[in-house]
């Protein structure tokens, strides 16, 4: 169904064109238009309402000298690195365990994946309760006799982000496990037989043969985890509200607070543009690796 050559007949495929109007509008107006608008207005001094008073990079200078933003970035980096490493590690190991022709595989998978069906709000509130120092794990261990036991991530500014990490991993590793399991099931059984005949230990087969063969799945998983990390917002709002103080702030929350709470639109636009930039830095190399050479071919 190639496009018409010669004079374009506008009514060709008219129904299809009409049906595609919502998609075209979304793509052009919301995705391209909206993004361009936000980037443009990040160079203005907009406060309560968007204003066309351009101030160059002033918003970005303010942003990068704001301690709240710097903490947000630091938290995102810590959360991001640990979440990426542990999601892949735990996800792969659980998938490998489930792949050992075990009984009750469906039961185990159902249990490991159910947190993914829950919202970040529910996840955050559940873990807020479990990590509550007066009632939760710390209290329970102390009441067992270990009086000096201290495990209080949500009220300790130094480790609060790890408390959020625990909840984030609980919610998200099931999904990575499912992806990895699908990947493992795609590996030809002959590979396993060949490795066994050659006497290669199982762990070596995984690391040197199976994982390299699952490159595509790993890339999908990494892109997936990475874009989830940048968006992390609800979890923090529910679990800590950014506290104690500003110790668990994240960029997505910075954007929301600037736009809708402190009437500082310019800061919100600048911060969201920085988030976009981060995504571009992650996605463009990936897209280049994945589609770069093949696209024209």
């Amino acid at each position: 169904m190639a496009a018409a050559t010669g004079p374009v007949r506008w009514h060709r495929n008219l129904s299809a064109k009409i049906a595609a109007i919502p998609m075209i509008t979304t793509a052009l107006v919301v995705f391209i238009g909206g993004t361009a608008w936000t980037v443009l207005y990040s160079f203005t001094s907009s406060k309560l309402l968007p204003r066309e008073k351009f101030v160059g990079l002033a918003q970005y200078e303010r942003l990068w000298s704001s301690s709240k933003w710097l903490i947000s970035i630091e938290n995102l980096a810590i959360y991001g690195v640990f979440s990426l490493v542990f999601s892949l590690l735990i996800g792969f190991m659980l998938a490998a365990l489930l792949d050992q022709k075990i009984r009750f595989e469906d039961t185990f998978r159902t249990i490991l994946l159910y947190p993914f069906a829950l919202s970040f709000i529910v996840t955050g509130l559940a873990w807020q309760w479990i990590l509550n120092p007066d009632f939760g794990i710390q209290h329970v261990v102390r009441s067992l006799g270990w009086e000096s036991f201290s495990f209080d991530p949500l009220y300790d500014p130094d480790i609060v982000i790890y408390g959020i990490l625990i909840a984030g991993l609980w919610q998200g590793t099931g999904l990575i496990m499912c992806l990895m399991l699908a990947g493992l099931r795609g590996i030809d059984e002959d590979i396993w037989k060949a490795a066994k005949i050659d006497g290669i230990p199982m762990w070596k087969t995984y690391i040197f043969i199976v994982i390299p063969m699952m490159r595509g799945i790993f890339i999908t998983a990494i892109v997936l985890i990475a874009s989830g990390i940048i968006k992390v917002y609800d979890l923090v709002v529910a679990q800590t509200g950014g506290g104690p103080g500003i110790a668990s702030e994240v960029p997505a929350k910075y954007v929301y607070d600037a736009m809708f709470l402190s009437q500082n639109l310019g800061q919100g636009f600048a911060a969201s543009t920085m988030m976009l930039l981060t995504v571009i830095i992650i996605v463009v190399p990936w897209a280049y690796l994945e589609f770069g050479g093949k696209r024209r071919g």
Partner: protein
Amino acid sequence: MGNVTKTAAEIQLAPARQEMTGPRGPKPGRTLSRRNIMIYGTLIVVSLYYLLPLYVMVVTSLKGMPEIRLGNIFSPPVEITFQPWVKAWAEACTGLNCDGLSRGFFNSVRILIPSVVLSIAIASVNGYALANWRFKGSETFFTILIVGAFIPYQVMIYPIVIMLREVGLYGSLTGLVIVHTIFGMPILTLLFRNYFASVPQELFKAARVDGAGFWGIYFQIMVPMSLPIFVVAMILQVTGIWNDFLFGVIYTKPDLYPMTVQLNNIVNSTQGVKEYNVNMAATILTGLVPLTIYFISGKLFVRGIAAGAVKG
């Protein structure tokens, strides 16, 4: 974006392939070998860890406040009470409203149903046009749509606020429904486009020869043939929209807040005495809809999230 689409198809195929070729890895021994003890032991410990929060939420919600203050969060309730559930559903306060989470629940239902119907209707027709009725530029728009799925929502939030304000829908449920439809479009369109593309072309051509048009083929051939993918799309949208927090808090106003936003406001409100049992009952109530969908749909849910996974 050929590879993205391929990955989605591969992931969806994977469970089916497993059934054909059987499970992998060495066969388990008949007896309790050391290896089996290790595997099952690890899986059971991990499963208990994953179940722990749910267990803690349930037992907390069934205790009275005095018992919570005295006991520990893991102990089962001595005296079971359903009072916290009643209070969470019908009496808990947010702001000036003291009609409990039921308000949020019905708001969420009023958001959910039109959003799911509208987003699936639009995306399925889009996917159909892209798969069978390509026109000049259609692939370009589709590429923009998929690339757009990677843009952080934060970048597009405010322009949408302005657009909705211009047409007088900012703060209304209709506005939120439109937002959900917009942001559900990339993944759903991808899902439907790939599915419709796999329907044999001969069928499509035969229908055209018989004189069926765009809508005729869609309603009489494509939709009846694609019910499974409609179910997958529904699972994806119901869980996604029910669990949404960001759009709810931005595009509606307090009276119309969806359940997740209201839940957060109830639990994290700084006023009054904290009633942990009510909070946990409210939390479970909010999680109940997606959990039910999850347990009923089983393998289809896995297919849905595997397809949604590509969205990122």
